[in-house]
């Protein structure tokens, strides 16, 4: 009876350990030819525990008079006024978007979830751009969507609800998304690198945030004259903290 209990307990512990995500701490270092300074868990990366009691003050080189001239530098790593640890990280579900076989006049949508934790009290910004049109290896393209009235662009969303409007675009919903995405019918097309269009902001916040979440909905609709083929491109998301 007692042995069975022990086995069950060990099984429980094993399962718990397998299921719980592993959390590891980071060490930021400053290395000089003469010395190395380790800064434990310095506003560190994803997975750092967010203890409200954990404090850090990391300023190297200003506490002792004359140290600047002898060391030659002064470093402040991390935001000096945020003592608790808030990592700067960006994640996205479904980095691979597969629309599958497209039928003319039948729009297909796919979604990804974007999550940002900003390490800076000054906030963050996520921008996106596509490498070029969705295209086949032979150069056939699905154009960027311009929406029902032909008015949406890489920076301005507009309604795209008609099945007779063709192209490739995206909608944003959730936290910190641009205000021109009024609802789920509003779309933009991605900034097109091949056309020298600059990155467009898809999420931003001026304040510090943890786990800010938005959903990006990709939409494609093709006409009956669209050539058959595997249409692909790449979308680059850039996550930058404020300074």
């Amino acid at each position: 009876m007692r042995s069975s209990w022990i086995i069950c307990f060990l099984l429980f512990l094993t399962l718990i350990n397998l299921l719980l995500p592993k959390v590891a701490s980071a060490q930021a270092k400053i290395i000089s030819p003469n010395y190395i300074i380790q800064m434990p868990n310095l506003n560190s990366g994803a997975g750092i525990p967010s203890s409200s009691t954990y404090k850090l003050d990391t300023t190297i080189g200003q506490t002792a008079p004359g140290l600047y001239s002898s060391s030659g530098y002064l470093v402040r790593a991390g935001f000096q006024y945020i003592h608790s640890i808030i990592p700067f990280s960006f994640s996205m579900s479904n980095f691979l978007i597969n629309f599958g076989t497209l039928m003319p006049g039948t729009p297909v949508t796919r979604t990804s979830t974007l999550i940002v934790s900003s390490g800076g009290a000054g906030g963050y910004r996520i921008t996106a751009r596509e490498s070029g049109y969705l295209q086949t290896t032979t150069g056939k393209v699905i154009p960027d969507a311009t929406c029902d009235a032909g008015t949406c662009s890489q920076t301005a969303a507009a309604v795209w609800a008609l099945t007779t409007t063709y192209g490739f675009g995206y909608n944003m919903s959730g936290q910190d998304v641009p205000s021109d995405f009024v609802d789920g019918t509003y779309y933009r097309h991605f900034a097109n690198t091949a056309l020298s269009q600059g990155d467009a902001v898809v999420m931003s916040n001026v304040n510090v945030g943890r786990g800010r979440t938005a959903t990006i909905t990709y939409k494609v609709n093709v006409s009956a004259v669209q050539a058959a083929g595997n249409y692909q491109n790449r979308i680059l998301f850039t996550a930058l903290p404020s300074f």
Partner: protein
Amino acid sequence: MQKIKQTTKVTCLFISLFICSLVYSIPVHAQTLGLSISPPIDEVMIIPGKAITQTFTITNDGNDGMASIYIVPFKADGENGNVDLDEKNAITNSSPYASWFSLSSPVNNFGEKFYMASGQRQDVIVKISPASDAAEKDYYFTLLYELDNTIPGGIVPIGPTNQARIGTNLLISLSKDGEPNKVLNLVEFSAPTIIDSLGELRFNIKIGNFGSYVFKPNGEIVIKPTFGNSETLKIAPLNIISDSIRNIPCLENEETVICESKNKVLVGIYKTTLTVSADNQDLPQKKTITTIAFPFSLIVGTILVVAVYKILKKPKNKI
């Protein structure tokens, strides 16, 4: 006896499994992309000609992929501390700042691909050595960690493949004496002149840096009402880089918040003074503004109540 032996074996098996799970378990994500970088900002003041080696920690919290590191100059974009990358001048062997930066881990060249397994944490070691004849001023760069996830075998997608990159900002100040002159310009400190008593007393602060070195505004807002006690708000010491203007919020419990009075009902004259200096170095600048809080909504509400009361109390004409 046989049963006890069997139980012992099973117990040992589970103990082994438990230890193995502790040692070997690695989170696996399906087609997930995840990056992080630490620290999120790095401010370096250095004597021209000297060198410093900085370590940044990057992680891959998604699928396996090929990573690369870039350093790109930036300038301020807008008034909220956002970064405008100058990607055409990313650090390469031929760029003007090529000799300032060198990469020693995990690869030796910017843009060179290296493998990042799922769950991997990697130190990126960058040596910063500004030229000895470089002008004494600030230089701003972003270190970018780009990850190109591996497409699972057998999948030929019809649609886009997402890549991501994440950055950390490097604010490099070149100074021989370590005490550069910082120039703070109070561009705006404002609030509405007249507000409703049930409204909000909010302040806008814009601070400009027309000098050559980054600084943090250090100061406070003191609100003195006609009646009651004074209220003090601390302004957030956000970085204001050279040739930029930044909206400055207030700081509360280590979070940036809108600068506003906490009082729910405001009546009378409020004299508010902002006192601010650059890194506590220069003489503080002061500006005082006045706001009148008048109970418009309360008066309108009272008139409405009286009017409705009078209408209801009005004697009805007898037929």
